């Protein structure tokens, strides 16, 4: 793929995209594969090295490897062919599915799919490590009453991770997805979530932490296509040095999607005045009986709180870390599984230790 295949930053949805980083990431020299650390959870453990399953070190359980198509998204369409797929039948419940994506340089592309039948429930946690450009496509289909909890962490020290997500959430189904960007890589999370059934619920957000010259961004569009749906987008951005986080979160409410309840909370924290946080909440509402709230704020650490903590003996670096951790906490506390939540919080703490 060349940069010519990608949209220009003059296109509104790509205005903050760091497209140059893709080719730079794809040109990274090969490295030895880092250790793939799985959390201590039962269930499937999949290890992908440069987009290919390492069968010897994987345990698929109910996950299959199959040929998958992608949508026509500018990045997502490159991820097609053999990928992983989780299908659960009615009322099926799988143990947590863990997937570690390791990159050893250059670029790799991988499609995936989660299809849950009526009242099925699944938990999926993905981690990205290594260096290079990892490009992923994820299609999710949730039937009536299905529940999916996903947690995705980006921990590559270098390179780029691009994620294209397309989801259809059925009647009374629930999709909860939390991201943590706490590596040194660039990233773009690009999502189109359609609430295709009445009373669907979507919670989609996370924390993106950047330092040095790093850039991370997300562009999420939630489409309320049916009545009585509820969506929550809670994003927290923390930017240090000369780094940049960009968050664009849009909610569309169709004309007949009455009683929609949508909420977007986009908040940025600048640890240095040379850093940048771009926020763009967007509402397109065609129904007349809806509740949609959006808030977007960018600020610095509260000086009063900093002094209060120091006056009690807490050193300034530690006070800064505690306040920053508190800032991102409400994005991470939405992870339902305690072990996964603890791991994500530890990753955020590790980032704070090095960045502050």
């Amino acid at each position, binding site marked *: 793929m060349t940069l010519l295949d990608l949209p220009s930053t003059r296109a509104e949805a790509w205005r903050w995209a760091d497209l140059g980083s893709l080719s730079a990431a794809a040109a990274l020299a090969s490295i030895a594969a880092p250790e793939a650390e799985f959390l201590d959870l039962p269930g499937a453990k999949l290890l992908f090295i440069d987009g290919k399953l390492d069968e010897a070190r994987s345990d698929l359980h109910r996950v299959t490897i199959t040929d998958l198509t992608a949508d026509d998204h500018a990045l997502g369409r490159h991820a097609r062919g053999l990928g992983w797929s989780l299908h659960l039948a009615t009322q099926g419940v799988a143990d947590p599915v863990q997937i570690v994506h390791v990159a050893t340089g250059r670029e790799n592309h991988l499609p995936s799919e989660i299809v849950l039948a009526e009242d099925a429930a699944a938990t999926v946690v993905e981690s990205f490590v290594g260096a290079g450009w990892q490009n992923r496509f994820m299609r999710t289909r949730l039937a009536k009453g299905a529940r999916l909890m996903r947690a995705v962490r980006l921990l590559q020290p270098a390179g780029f991770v691009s994620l294209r997500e397309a989801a259809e959430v059925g009647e009374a189904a629930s999709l909860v997805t939390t991201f943590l960007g706490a590596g040194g890589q660039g990233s773009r999370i690009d999502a189109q979530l359609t609430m295709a059934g009445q009373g669907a619920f979507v919670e989609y957000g996370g924390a993106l932490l950047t330092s040095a010259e790093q850039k991370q961004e997300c562009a999420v569009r939630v489409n309320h296509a049916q009545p009585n749906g509820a969506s929550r987008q809670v994003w927290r951005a923390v930017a240090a040095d000369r780094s940049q986080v960009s968050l664009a979160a849009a909610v569309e409410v169709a004309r007949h999607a009455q009683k929609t309840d949508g909420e977007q909370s986009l908040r940025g924290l600048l640890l240095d005045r040379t850093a940048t946080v771009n926020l763009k909440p967007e509402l397109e509402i065609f129904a007349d009986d809806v509740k949609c709230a959006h808030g977007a704020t960018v600020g610095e650490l*509260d000086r009063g709180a900093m*002094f*209060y903590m120091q*006056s*009690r*003996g807490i050193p300034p670096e530690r006070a800064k870390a*505690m306040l920053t*951790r508190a800032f991102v906490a*409400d994005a991470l506390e939405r992870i339902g599984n305690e072990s996964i939540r603890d791991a994500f919080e530890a990753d955020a703490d590790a980032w704070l230790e090095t960045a502050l």
Partner: protein
Amino acid sequence: MLQITNLHAEIAGTPILKGLTLTVNAGEIHAIMGPNGAGKSTLGYVIGGRPGYEVTEGSITFNGQDLLELAPNERAAAGVFLGFQYPVEIPGVSNVQFLREALNAQRTNRSEKPLSGAEFLKLAREEARKLEMDVEMLKRPVNVGFSGGEKKRNEMVQMGIIDPSFAILDETDSGLDIDALRIVGDGINRIMRRPDKAVMLITHYQRLLDYVRPDFVHVLADGRITRSGGAELAHQLEREGYTEIAA
């Protein structure tokens, strides 16, 4: 213990303290009273080291150490506690986490062993009980959703846990009802009324001084101490107001 000499301080170029001199010895409780805008809170903040308050002249020494050379956390580690008039709310940081960090940071600074979680919880619960504060409030975010009185009681719990050698209490009596005033007053006496400790009570009113009897009362007006006396001076101020006495 604390020696303030010819202290001049300003905020954003506006002089607030204009030559304040005061000595506080171990075992003493000093009350600082005075009209609004006289510089009482500024005095507390300058001693605590709040950014934005610039000392242009004079000195503050604490146990022979130049306090103005120290960062706010180092002043705390040296034994100075600043009780805030308006304690800050810190969402997302629990009281327990905050207090344990504070105490252990100070203990580390004094080359003492940090307390374990269990040891700390025992100490925190005991202190909350003594100040009749609901133990559940220790789990809540620092001061978030607390009433004015609860915030002040929380300040006293912090003081009890940290156990400083010198406390500046800035209008700790504001926002307290009569029962809370008695509990807070008893707390100050219990924690700080010791031969090796000292207190500077900044207050507008006599009422806290009924519970915490000061050894000295000072009138602070227009940035300097204009009059000093014993506990009876507070009664005189209550009767006659500041206008005559502070002039």
